């Protein structure tokens, strides 16, 4: 247990430092504000990815409805921003000034009750965590207590994603419908649209992201994390050992939901926009794909996956407006067929051994400690 007692093992430490260097130094220095803002948008999916690593990679619970939680977090944030943008002064031309524009278009004449808490930033932040968290708790309890799992659970999460989309689209007077909530302007009077605000938001988001990475890593290393893995491999054994499997699953699912919600809230802030097109089945599956491409067993892989897939998406669509979807599809098929463990699998199989060999060749002594470590890691050595 030498390795596990440390917070990061060596390769994880390299990953952590590389990612920090990239996000904190290299990208801000090399990109203009427009591209940096795009990176901020891509990184919002990395939050979802980290949650999926915990819940799918470690816990073995495949959720195809993470868009629901991304959307709930995003909508909570967007509702706050929209209310602030809909001051009486800004909405003079409406029949009822002081309410969001889409309510006015739908003949709603007063602010609905469930919108009231979103006047307060504190309550909004609480809602971003609690609303998706509680929702996941309800779904999780209903499913896992009845031992619904695997494919059935994945299908049900998809259904939930579809239901929420229909609800949002159908109740357009209260939610903005298919158009979503657009034209978000200020956060507590601070304009989120100009360039310097975008840079601030980017750094804030990267800090939050690293907070989530550390939290996820912490969960992974505790006994809880190991129970998750055990549960994925042999659910019955864990149950017969006296653990309540359902509770652990619910916990993993709720954590994934909260991470996704934080991503959604950051999305609304960075993009100035929230719409049902991030809630439904297709975006939910896309989020799973980002994680799969990055490698579902790796927290850093999830971040890289979200970044690289989205960079490819933007790059291909700018260069080949009519053909890019085929290119992207081909990329996914290639990755999944050739590298089932995603980018982090490529790293672990091809790059990491070379680095190790290089280091061993230079410094023979620490290599011994490393060997000891790996034996200790792989359960009984004898």
């Amino acid at each position: 247990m030498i390795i596990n007692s440390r917070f990061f093992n060596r390769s994880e430490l390299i990953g952590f430092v590389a990612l920090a260097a990239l996000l904190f130094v290299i990208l801000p220095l090399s990109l203009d504000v427009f591209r940096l803002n795009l990176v901020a948008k891509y990184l919002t999916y990395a939050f979802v990815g980290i949650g999926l690593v915990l819940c799918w990679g470690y816990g073995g619970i495949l959720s195809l409805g993470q868009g629901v939680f991304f959307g709930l977090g995003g909508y909570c944030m967007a509702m706050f921003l929209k209310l602030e943008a809909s001051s009486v002064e800004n909405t003079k031309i409406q029949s009822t000034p002081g309410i969001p524009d889409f309510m006015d278009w739908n003949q709603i004449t007063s602010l609905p009750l469930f919108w009231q808490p979103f006047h307060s930033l504190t309550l909004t932040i609480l809602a971003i965590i609690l609303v998706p968290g509680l929702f996941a708790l309800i779904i999780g309890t209903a499913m896992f207590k009845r031992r619904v799992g695997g494919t059935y659970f994945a299908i049900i999460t998809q259904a939930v994603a579809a239901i929420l989309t229909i609800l949002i689209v159908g109740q357009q007077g209260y939610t903005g419908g298919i158009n979503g909530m657009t034209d978000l302007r200020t956060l507590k009077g601070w304009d989120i649209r100009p360039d310097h605000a975008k840079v601030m938001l980017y750094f804030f988001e990267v800090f939050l992201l690293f907070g989530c990475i550390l939290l996820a890593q912490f969960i992974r290393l505790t006994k809880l994390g190991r129970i998750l893995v055990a549960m994925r491999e042999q659910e019955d054994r864990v149950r017969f050992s006296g653990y309540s499997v359902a509770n652990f699953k619910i916990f993993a699912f709720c954590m994934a939901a909260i991470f996704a919600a934080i991503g959604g809230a950051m999305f609304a802030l960075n993009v100035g926009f929230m719409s049902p097109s991030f809630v439904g089945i297709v975006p939910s599956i896309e989020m799973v794909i980002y994680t799969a491409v990055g490698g579902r067993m790796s927290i850093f892989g999830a971040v890289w996956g979200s970044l690289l897939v989205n960079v490819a998406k933007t790059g291909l669509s700018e260069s080949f407006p009519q053909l890019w979807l085929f290119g992207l599809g081909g990329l996914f098929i290639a990755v999944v067929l050739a590298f089932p463990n995603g980018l982090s699998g490529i790293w672990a199989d091809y790059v990491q051994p070379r680095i190790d060999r290089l280091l061993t060749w230079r410094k023979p002594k620490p290599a011994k400690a490393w060997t000891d470590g790996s034996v200790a890691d792989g359960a009984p050595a004898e």
Partner: protein
Amino acid sequence: MSDEIKRGLQSPLRRKLLMGAAALPAMALLPRLAFGAGPPTAAVNTTGLAVTDTEVTVGILHSATGTMAISETGSIQAEKLAIEQINAMGGVLSRKIKIIQEDGASDWPTFAEKAKKLLVNDKVASIMGCWTSASRKAVLPVMEQYNGMLYYPTFYEGLEQSKNVIYTGQEATQQILAGIDWITKEKNAKSFYFIGSDYIWPRTSNKIARKHIENFLKLKVVGEEYFPLGHTQFNSVINKLKLTKPDVIFTDVVGGSNVAFYKQLKAAGIDLSKQTLLTISVTEDEIDGIGGENIAGAYACMKYFQSLKNENNEKFVAAFKKMWGDKTVIGDVTQAAYLGPWLWKATVEKAGSFDVDKVAAASPGIEFKGAPEGYVRIHENHHLWSKTRVGKAKLDGQFDMVFETADLIQPDPFPKGYQ
């Protein structure tokens, strides 16, 4: 369904081949035009747009992929045609128009992202683009923040007006009211049934139609139903139609749902030669998917039909088919998209500048006499004066125009008494 699939499979490929085949000899044969003989760049571009002595860059921002691609492809084609024709005439202020095309991918935030890219990175002088209201709503804050100029082609719900947008389609009152008046008189209608897709445009259009029918014509609306975008099961509402027997079915169902709706209507035995149906969402483009035999007899309320008989339109249709193939059809929005580059050119030349502020200020009063729909003019509120026309769908997918308003109708995006 099979028509749709066939169309989806063959048309992009064919278009690609055609484009490639057409572009090569054309480039070699074109005479060198005297681009660069215009006023100096420093005088016509004071805000750092992508304008050189010989070139000016504009953006085209539509969905080339995704569910909206079928509808938006026509707009892309019309805009490219207009730009090619303008370049052949010597460009704008003696500068050749260069196009940067971006794909909105039927995804609203992507539209916002790409609009921002066009304005911030490419510094385009104007953008021809957007189709759905949702994409426009997503792009609008970007246009206003970075001071861009958008030419938006689709008929839409109104309730919007921006310095940074020219609306070349009709707003709801321009499209609907005259059509309802005509059909009421023509068919001696007393009752209406509304069926629409569930989003802002059908809801607002129906709200305006309902106020007009109930408050001004003193008639009845006996039903109003909405279905999610992409919905394909209309049996329940068709049963209700059979029970209520409205004099007029008024529809604003959009996109692929149309195919299912009209086929099921026909299968249920509702014969559109006996039952009056007025739609504000079916153009020649949609009939291509629905099939003429499924919708023949229905009335559509638009400002343009491909079959319009005037000199401008005959030239336009011929040029469009020459560039994009004989089988292409031209709907209302495609024609409105064609107006965008022409109106922009006229405005820039009147303003004597590419600067967005000057173009926005010079826009009211700009006329375009060569419009396929006939004469058009930009109103103070950045919408177009336009006629309302009613056409009757034929088996071959075209419309017979049966009514047009005598005068141009003033655009009124915030109609009093209809909100």
